[in-house]
Structure formats: structure tokens, C-alpha cells
């Protein structure tokens, strides 16, 4: 795995400092060194002198988008924000703009060329340098839309050249070959671990609803228990709510304290959306969200 150089961090800090100094932005959302070795923490920098804290390396696995929203809400109206964006975060930002959650002019996107991040868990079990699962199938090391790009022009292409080398849907295709009963047993086993802490939802850039359906009590969409049917339905519905929106950044899986393999279902849905509706999330600012639009000629072979 490619190591971040001290130089690239320097470029990032300079870019942030310049934006703050020139009053192009009121704040910069980025990463700072974390309190645990494999997990950087989010940082909101409002002063150019404070920009020294910013880093970018393989520990920067969390998604900054929830923190961007929080920072913009807390800031005075009209404040512009800079945000440090990996390829996946850049796609999520595009999707935010597509969904009307953000105006293009509200953000200055500081693109960083990402070589993949490490999983914060399993420090003892895994090679410390090993790429996270999501990064191994990633195709987008650079944000599709950016204002400033640090860390070299070598990886400015955004299609088909992520840090990952694995086939994008290899895991899905392998899993689909198994018999249905076995697939169900796998999901039961996997989701039985879930304790309904909602860390996945909170870490997810796309789960930005102020009130999530699981938190509503009237109507009570879903039981609050950690009983398996309830947890299973929670995860199915979360996957459906992020259908055609999920950028497969893997933040949910990295956030999960029990190591539930959450992304498989999301990936299957992403594959369906791509094949059926020809939509890939977060590449085009003029796109319409796949599940919020339709084509009269959509295939309907499954309808009686």
C-alpha cells in the first residue's frame, strides 16, 4: 500500500491555510490525528494558524460529510466551508448537490488523491497496512468534482482507477451462486451480531435525515428490540433508503463495533441500480437520483 508522504500533508495544510487566509471559506472540515492509532478524527478548522492540525493519510477512514453538515449548521448563515475529500467523499458531495442538500457554491472541495484507508479494527489480526475491504474494490481515488487538488496530478482520472484492484461486484457475484437457504443463513448469522447502536447510520454520509424512521414512535415503523427480525428489517430498509445513493465508501462497516458485514446488501442494490437504471452514484452534478425519477420503459419483467 502506498504510504502518504509528509509532503502531501504539507500541500493540504497550505491549501487550507490559503483558503482561510483569503477568506474564501469560513471553515475547513478535515482530519486530525486521532486518539487511537488507526482512526483519524474529524477537525473543523476556522483559523489559518489552526490548519497545522490537518492531516491526510491511511487512517482517514471516517466520512466527513456528517461533520460538514454539523459545522455548516453551527456557522453563521452564508458561511462557506472547505472540505477535504477522498474519491468516495467527493462522490457523496456530488450526490448531496444532486439531492439539493448542498449548493455547489457553498463548498470548496479540497480533493486529495486517496490510496485507500485501513480498517480501524482487527489491529492484531490483520496486517496493519492492509487496505479496508471497501477500498479494495474502489474505482475512485479522486473526487469527480473538486476546486483544489493536492497530492499531485498523477491520479486526476476518476474512472476505473481507484486504489482497489478487486472486481467491483466480485463478492456479490460469488455470494449469489450460493443456494437461497445458505444466503439467508449467512445474513441471519451476520445480522444477529447487530446491537442496534446505529453507528452505521451515524457514520453514513447518506443517512442525513433529521429524524430516522427507526427513531419515530408515531407511527412506530419498527420495533426497538435487537430481536433478529427487527434488526434485519432495519438493515434492509437502511439499504433501501440508500439505494441509488450509497457511494460504497465503507464508513458504515468501519464504524460498526461488531464488524457486521453491512456493505454486501448495499453493493447488490448498487449493482441493480447500475444495471437496471444505468445510474452510478455521485459522478454527475446534473444527474437525477435514480429512485426519485423513472423511465417509462423501465424493465418490468417481475410484475404480474
Amino acid at each position, binding site marked *: 500500500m502506498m504510504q502518504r508522504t509528509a509532503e502531501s500533508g504539507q500541500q493540504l495544510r497550505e491549501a487550507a491555510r490559503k483558503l482561510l487566509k483569503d477568506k474564501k471559506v469560513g471553515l475547513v472540515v478535515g482530519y486530525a490525528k486521532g486518539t487511537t492509532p488507526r482512526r483519524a478524527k474529524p477537525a473543523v478548522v476556522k483559523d489559518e494558524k489552526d490548519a497545522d492540525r490537518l492531516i491526510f493519510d491511511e487512517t482517514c477512514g471516517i466520512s466527513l460529510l456528517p461533520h460538514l453538515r454539523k459545522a455548516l449548521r453551527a456557522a453563521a448563515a452564508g458561511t462557506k466551508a472547505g472540505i477535504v475529500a477522498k474519491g468516495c467523499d467527493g462522490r457523496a458531495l456530488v450526490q448531496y448537490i444532486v439531492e439539493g442538500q448542498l449548493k455547489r457554491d457553498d463548498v470548496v472541495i479540497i480533493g486529495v488523491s486517496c490510496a485507500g484507508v485501513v480498517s480501524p479494527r482487527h489491529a492484531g489480526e490483520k496486517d496493519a497496512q492492509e487496505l479496508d475491504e471497501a477500498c479494495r474494490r474502489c474505482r475512485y481515488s479522486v473526487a469527480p468534482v473538486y476546486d483544489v487538488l493536492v497530492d499531485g496530478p498523477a491520479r486526476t482520472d476518476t474512472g476505473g482507477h481507484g486504489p482497489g484492484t478487486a472486481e467491483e461486484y466480485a463478492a*456479490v457475484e460469488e*455470494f*449469489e451462486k450460493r443456494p*437461497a*437457504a*445458505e*444466503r*439467508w*443463513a*449467512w*445474513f*441471519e*448469522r451476520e445480522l*444477529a*451480531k447487530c446491537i442496534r447502536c446505529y453507528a452505521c447510520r451515524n457514520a453514513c454520509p447518506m443517512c442525513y435525515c433529521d429524524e430516522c*424512521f427507526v427513531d419515530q414512535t408515531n407511527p412506530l*415503523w*419498527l*420495533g426497538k428490540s435487537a*430481536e*433478529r*427480525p*427487527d434488526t*434485519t*428489517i432495519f438493515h*434492509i*430498509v437502511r*439499504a*433501501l433508503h440508500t*439505494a*441509488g445513493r450509497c457511494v460504497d465508501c465503507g464508513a458504515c462497516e468501519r464504524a460498526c463495533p*461488531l464488524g457486521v458485514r453491512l456493505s454486501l*446488501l448495499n453493493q*447488490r*442494490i448498487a449493482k*441493480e*441500480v447500475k444495471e*437496471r*437504471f444505468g445510474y452510478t452514484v455521485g459522478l454527475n452534478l446534473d444527474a437525477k437520483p*435514480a*429512485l*426519485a*425519477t*423513472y*423511465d*417509462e420503459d*423501465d*424493465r*418490468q419483467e*417481475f*410484475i*404480474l
Partner: protein
Amino acid sequence: MNEWEPKIIAFLCNWCSYAGADLAGVSRIQYPPNVRVVRVPCSGRVNPVFVLKSLENGFDGVLVSGCHPGDCHYISGNYVARRKFAVLKAALEFMGVEPGRVHFSWVSAGEGEKFAQVVGRVTEEVKKLGPATRLVKGADAGRRVQVR
């Protein structure tokens, strides 16, 4: 108890499928009595949670039915629903839920005959599968899954 009969819930849109079911009734067309009908304004009103919760709470099969494409009272409700259901169906089948549990159909207000056929087909398929076990609350009571 006699032979097991499946319970099937049908979400029918107010403007087409519900009227289709009504027509089947007034035309005295026979169809299996296993369906329980819930009238909804539009197939686009059907939240996937309805389908999942129906299974969780003990229905053995689910049918969602709306107007034919182009006939939606709200112009595009069924088109958007079609995308939603395509994804829902793919997700459920991927997880290993039997394809025969959840069905979708277009039935117009004039298609009483078709409504009866659809219900007949859905009932038959669910009967073949037997009682639902996946996603059902209480089905795994007392069982513990080992957490790694």
C-alpha cells in the same frame, strides 16, 4: 386444524386494482379467500416497510398492485413505485427470501378477471412455499445464534 391456508396481504391502489377487485366481486368471479385487502391511494404509497412488516407480523405472502403504466391517477406514482419494487425484490431475493413471497402486479379497474387470476397465482405460489419463516417475528424464539 385442517389443511394449512396461507394468509396473504394485498395492497391495492384506490383507482385501479381496488376497483378491479371490486369488479371481480360484483361479477361473482371466484378467487381464493386468502387475501386480506388494504386499500392505498396509489401503488406509490406503498412503503417497502409495509411489505417487510407484513412478513414480520405473520403474513405468508404479500401482493402489491397498482394501475398499469400510463394509467396512474397521479401520473407517475406507479412508475416511481416500479423502480422501488425492482430494488426491493432484488434485495430480498439476494438475502435468500423466497421469490414467491412478494408479488407485484398491474390490474386496471376493468380487469376483474385478471385480479382473480393474479390472486389465484399468488395464493398457489405461497401455498407451495408453505408458512413463512424468514423475517417472521417469533419464528426463532428460543434459538440463539452464536456471535463470533
